[in-house]
Every structure is written in structure tokens, then in C-alpha cells.
């Protein structure tokens, strides 16, 4: 890890986000299993999932596959609606995190999320993707990114134009989901 990286983490200037290449993603679900393994996600719960959308009428069909998780919104309604501050923006990575010690399980965050990215953990608190914060602060890639066999997932600092995620966004057309909700997601799909 470079000193500049550590310094920027301390200054809180990082805005980690995720880019998923819908052309490269084959829907193998390796990312889902890696996430489950890395973060000890309980059986029956998903921090990550894979979507497949087929449009048109046979034989004129168009298919899009992508792996999805929390969109790490910059204007996160789960954070603003949380009555206890359990849902918060991590100052180091700019990601949305949940503090289980403060969570009451009121589920206001779940009804606030336009992506339905949260679930009730078997311990009672509300859980979601942390963007592998524990790995990011060590300068490691997220579990989903590191296991993806087609390099369809890129996680990086969107404030850093040289990060792989930023470069992918610069080179390819991209879209974001449900922007009408006004949450300014940091999750983009390359199309």
C-alpha cells in the first residue's frame, strides 16, 4: 500500500464505488459465493445476487446479465431515514455501512432502499454489502472482484481517475439504475 493511498484514506477523500460490465458478466454467481464466504452471510440471505433480463420476442432477443449489491448511494435514504445512526457513511471509504450495535431492526432502511439491497440478518440487525470495507482499507480488492473469472466487476475510488473502475467508466457507455429515486448511486453498469 502506498503512503499516498493511506494518506487519502485518512483524509476521507475516497469515494469507493462499483462498476459491473454487463457484456463480460456470464452470471456464474462466483461473486455471490465469494461474498457469502468472505462475509459469513447466513444461509437464505444475499448481499450479492445476479440478475438476468431478457427482452424482445423470439428470435429477436436481447439479454443482459449483471451482478448486483448495495449501490453505495451518495445520497443514501437508508442513512437519512435511520433513526439511530446505525446506517452511516464511512468517512474513510465513503461507503454506506451498518453498525449492528446501534441497529434496532426497525426496517426503515429496508423500505427506504430502492434497490432492496438489505435484509434482516439472522442475529436480528439489518445487513447489507459493506463493499468489503475490511479489505479496501488494507488495499485489497473486494471478494467479488477478486474472484470474478471475466473481470466484469471493478471496485475503486471514483474520485481517482486512474482507478480501474474510473477508467472503465471513461472508456465505455454506462448506466445507473433507478435514478428517479434521487439517491445518486455509486454503482454503474457498463452496457
Amino acid at each position, binding site marked *: 500500500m502506498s503512503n499516498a493511498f493511506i494518506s487519502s484514506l485518512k483524509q476521507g477523500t475516497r469515494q469507493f464505488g462499483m462498476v459491473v460490465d454487463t457484456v463480460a458478466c456470464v452470471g456464474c454467481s462466483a461473486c455471490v459465493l465469494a461474498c457469502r464466504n468472505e462475509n459469513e452471510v447466513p444461509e437464505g440471505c444475499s448481499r450479492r445476487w445476479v440478475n438476468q433480463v431478457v427482452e424482445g420476442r423470439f428470435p429477436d432477443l436481447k439479454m443482459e446479465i449483471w451482478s448486483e449489491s448495495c449501490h453505495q448511494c451518495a445520497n443514501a435514504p437508508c442513512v437519512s431515514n435511520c433513526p439511530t445512526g446505525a446506517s452511516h457513511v464511512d468517512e474513510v471509504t465513503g461507503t454506506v455501512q451498518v453498525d449492528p450495535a446501534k441497529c434496532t431492526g426497525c426496517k426503515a432502511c429496508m*423500505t427506504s432502499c430502492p434497490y432492496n439491497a438489505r435484509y434482516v440478518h439472522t442475529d436480528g440487525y439489518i445487513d447489507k454489502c459493506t463493499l468489503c470495507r475490511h479489505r479496501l482499507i488494507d488495499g485489497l480488492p473486494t471478494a467479488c472482484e477478486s474472484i470474478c473469472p471475466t473481470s466484469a466487476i471493478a471496485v475503486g475510488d471514483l474520485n481517482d481517475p486512474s482507478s480501474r473502475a474510473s477508467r472503465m467508466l471513461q472508456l465505455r457507455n454506462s448506466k445507473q439504475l433507478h435514478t428517479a429515486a434521487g439517491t445518486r448511486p455509486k454503482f454503474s453498469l457498463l452496457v
Partner: protein
Amino acid sequence: MIMQSPFVETTTTRVNGHVDPVLNVWPWEVPADLFLAGLVAGLLVIFSAVVLLRKEEKFPTVVKWAPLYAIPLLSLGLFLLFLDLSYKLHAFRFYTTFQVSSPMSWGSWLYLSVFAVGGLQFAYTLAENHAWRSTRLGKLFFWKWFEGFEVSTRRKLAWGSLVAGIGLGTYTGVLLSTMPSRPLWNSGLMGPLFLISGIAAACALMMLTSRQSQERQSLLRILLPAVLLNLIFVLMWVVDMSHGNATNLEASQMLLGGSYTAAFWALVVVVGLLVPTVLQVQAVRGRWNLSLVAPVLVLFGGLALRVLLVQAGQAFGYGV
């Protein structure tokens, strides 16, 4: 899970409980609490109005019973909310912080202030009750403190109840309207709609409690405009939804042709608002006897409104 619409088939591997295929994290407990909180808000508003307008002699049942109903009903509502929490041991966390951007945080403290003001009204009303004062509990020394309340103190307390009641009733609607991911709830009319519905329900409860026909006639003259206003707010909200952006339009289809249409229009609008209005108008005109059917229907309509709105709002999200 597979969701289908014409020429589009969406498949997702996500199978989170109470999230897929449609969100259902607030089942019956939350709408039941919203109804009870609205009812309590209405009771406090009506009671305060009676005291502040010095109409105690005209509404003896309201003066005697509204404060006694409010606290037990609010406690029941809070208990239902507690049942809904998935991390019950952390319930105290609501009161270790105040999150200014969170309506639920405002609501938590609002509940507490209603308990404080309503609790004083509750104690004062009990202290005034001669039959109760002769009981063993009523003979305890501290009730004399409430007995000693002067009229001016009582009026100040009524102002507090009025503000707390309006705040609580409005909060129950604002809580839903601030969820950006649930387009069906995203209307500024939700707050006043739930407040007026709560006032109508409280008025109906007082009509059912009252044994004096004169007082029931007076309550009828409050209930009728409240129900009419409630009907206007419901229709305005539907118009608001059906003339919003593309997402609002799609959400409004839940009530205008979608799966909740029959239940909403039949139970909330016809049974809960239109039929009671007709019954009350006929009673005011003296054509039909004033019956207890109308207040029962108003209470039922208020509960149905909240149950259906919470369910329909959760069922319609942004999808995949």
C-alpha cells in the same frame, strides 16, 4: 424468482426473506400502530379543542374519556412497534440519539412527548373522577397534586396536547411519505390525510362511547365534516399520484386497475367514507335515526386505509 411483463423476463438469484418477490417488512404491526397513533392524535386534538373552546358541558364524554383512552391505546401501538423490531434488545437505541434527518427519530421523541402530555391529562382526568378517587389507589397522596390543577394550568396543558396531537397525527403520514423508494407514498398529502383520518376515527370512538343523544348529535357535526375532508384528501392524493412523474403514475396503477384497486375503493372509499357520509347526512336531516353503524364504519375505514396503503406501498418498488 421470475418476474414477467410483456416482452421482458427478469430473473434474479436474490431470495431474501420479506424482500422477495415483493417487499413486506412492515406487515400488520406497523399499519395497526399507525392507526392507533392516528386515533390517539385525534383524541388529543378533540379533547384539547373542547377544553380550549370551553365546551366541556356540551361534550362530557370527550372530557371524561378521551384522555383515559389515549395513553392505553398509545401504549398498545408502541407495543406493536416493539413486536415489529427484529432486534428487540436494542429498542433503547431510539432514545440514545436524535437523528435530525430521520422522521422515525422525530417520531420516537414525539411518542415520548405525547406520553408526557397525555400522561398528565390521564392523571388529571382520573384525579377529577370522584368514583375512582374513592378506590385504594385513588386515595394515594399524589393524586391531590393533580386535583389542585388550576383552570389556567389545564388550558396550558390543552395547548400542549393540541400541538402533540397534531404532530403525532401528521407524523404517521410523513413517516411513509419520506421513503423515496416507495413511490406510492411520496406525496405531501400523506401527513394531513392521516391526521384528518385520525381525527375522524377519534370522533367516531367518542360517538360510540357517549350515552347522551345530545352529545352524539354534537359529535356528529364534527364527524361529518371530518369524514368529508378525509374523502377529499383521499381523492386529492389519488389525483396527485396519477398526475405525477412516470414512477408515480405506475405506482398509482396499484389503486387504479392493479391488484389493490378493489380492496381500496370498496373498503376505504365506499365502506369507510361514502356509506358513513350518507348515513350521517340522513341523520342530520332527520330522515334516519342516528345509528352507531357510521362510527363503526369510520373506524374500520381508517384501519383499512393504513393497512392497504402500507401493503400496496411496499408491494410497488422500482423492481430489478
